[in-house]
């Protein structure tokens, strides 16, 4: 089975976001970069599928600037066999990134299944997975909680209010993982050493048939949230506090 997993490198969740000089992007100086947490579930799912199907390979793909090689190596250390890095600008939008990754996938001889995270925690747009599938020309299912792989693939997809859709489609398809789909493994030291020697193919935009015109949206005028004014502290014993809080919510904030 030819298994693929698409990942994105993002700032660590603890990052304090600062803006660049013209507020067109964040200031990336000093940012610690990690694999987007939802992608770890995608990598793990790909590896488990490989382990159940001897002879399979898992290829990890990522689009972004030179730094994303570190996250590709992380996935290789978890157990992926080889990597593909498609070099695109930091500021590329979901459409360009997806088209670049789809272009890389279409260069492969045969794709059985593609995994990804249900969204990346940087722009949180939740678009790239669906767009990769669209440009490769395969069905997709997002926010997957588990999948059974048989003659068709049956996926439990999380929707609102704790409900699930029971989705079914034949391979090839793309599955975008939700947190909790599995328990991602930690890379062990020997694997980390081995990962350094695994092959990572570097592709440029022209190699995968994309250009600047594939960028459909652009961010501008970024703003940090205005500092909040100090709130009211409500004093007294618990009964008094509760009473006063309900009064303020009703009369002042008018939200209940």
């Amino acid at each position, binding site marked *: 089975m030819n298994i693929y997993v698409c990942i994105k490198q993002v*700032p660590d969740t*603890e*990052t*304090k*976001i600062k803006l660049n000089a013209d507020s067109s992007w*964040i200031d990336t100086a000093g940012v610690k970069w990690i694999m987007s*947490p939802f992608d770890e579930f995608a990598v793990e799912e790909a590896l488990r599928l490989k382990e159940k199907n001897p002879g399979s390979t898992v290829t990890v793909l990522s689009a972004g600037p030179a730094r994303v090689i570190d996250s590709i190596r992380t996935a290789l250390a978890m157990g992926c066999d080889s990597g593909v890095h498609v070099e695109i600008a930091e500021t590329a939008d979901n*459409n360009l990134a997806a088209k670049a990754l789809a272009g890389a996938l279409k260069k492969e001889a045969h794709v059985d299944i593609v995994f990804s995270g249900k969204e990346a*925690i*940087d722009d*949180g*747009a939740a*678009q790239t997975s*669906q*767009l990769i599938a*669209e440009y490769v020309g395969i*069905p*997709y*299912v997002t926010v997957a909680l588990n999948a059974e792989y048989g003659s068709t693939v049956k996926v439990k997809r999380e*929707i*609102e*209010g*704790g*409900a*699930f*859709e*029971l*989705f*079914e*489609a034949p391979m090839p*398809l793309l599955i975008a993982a939700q*947190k*909790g789909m599995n328990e991602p493994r930690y890379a062990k030291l020997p694997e980390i050493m081995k990962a350094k020697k695994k092959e990572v193919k570097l592709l440029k935009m022209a190699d995968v048939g994309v250009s600047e015109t594939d*960028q*459909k*949206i*652009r*961010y*501008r005028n*970024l*703003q*940090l*949230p205005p500092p*909040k004014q100090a*709130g009211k*502290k*409500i004093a007294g014993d*618990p*009964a008094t*506090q*509760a*009473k006063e*809080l*309900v009064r*303020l*919510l*009703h009369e002042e*904030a008018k*939200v*209940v």
Partner: protein
Amino acid sequence: MAKVFVIAEHRDGRLKKATFELLGASAAAGNETHAILLGEGVAGLATELGHNGAQTVHVVENAALKFYTSEAYSKVIVEILKKHTPDVVLASHTPTGRDLMPCVAARMNVGLASDCTQLAFEGAKIKVRRPVYSGKATAEVEFLASGPQMATVRPNALGVPKADSARIASVVAETGNFAGLLTQVTDVVKGSSARPDVTEASIVVSGGRSMKSAENFKILEELADILGAAVGASRAAVDSGYRPHRDQVGQTGKVVSPLLYIACGISGAIQHLAGMRTSKTIVAINQDPDAPIFQVADYGVVADLFAVVPALKDEFKKLKDH
């Protein structure tokens, strides 16, 4: 004035209030406002779409649309959009909208601004802003492609309009081609909880590590049920096994924007604040007066949550019964 198409969303025979938010915002700006309504046995919902601002409702009814699939829905929607050439296409950033709209945008050869929290109409165009880095910053979205401007909007971001039963939409029956579909949704399994989803609720009551156990969340559930609220949780509470991941609010969980967010025993890690700081009113109940959650709280209660929450429940009950 813009020609605006809104993708209407419904579940269990009821329209989502997030759909009304989009229709209301479009109608209030004086736009030519259309709704697209897909499903099986749903045509009756067109009336309510009209009351909430749709002038025309485009309906497709088919067994293949009984349950949402991106494949069938995107196919039908793209056909309708290509036929009617709107200026603006809007959907809600719900589990359905977020799954569906990137694919629709790609087929229209345009970009999509997803999860917008601000939306304004300017002539035939829209101006939108969306949170990035889970709300640690926001960005205006510039549309670079020619063609309809498309956006998904976060539920609760615009506010629900006042329905007017004098407004009647004209209904247009559209058709779709459902041959050769590869995917299907065989069933939708309901959640065990009758409470609203954290992302759609007007009020969210959330608990953190200080809840100390899964059982202790019962006091938050009781409070939530009086308010018709959802119950949320911090990553610490979810990682401790007190709540399922679907309830997690924060950068690696869900980003919420309710009218009222009540944080109980949540210290306010940066990744949690990212997920709830756009809430209209924030209440923090925490024993530690230095907890970072108080920096974003409109109302702070420094106290033992196990004493305050039950008292709060009684006070809200009095208010409701009043």
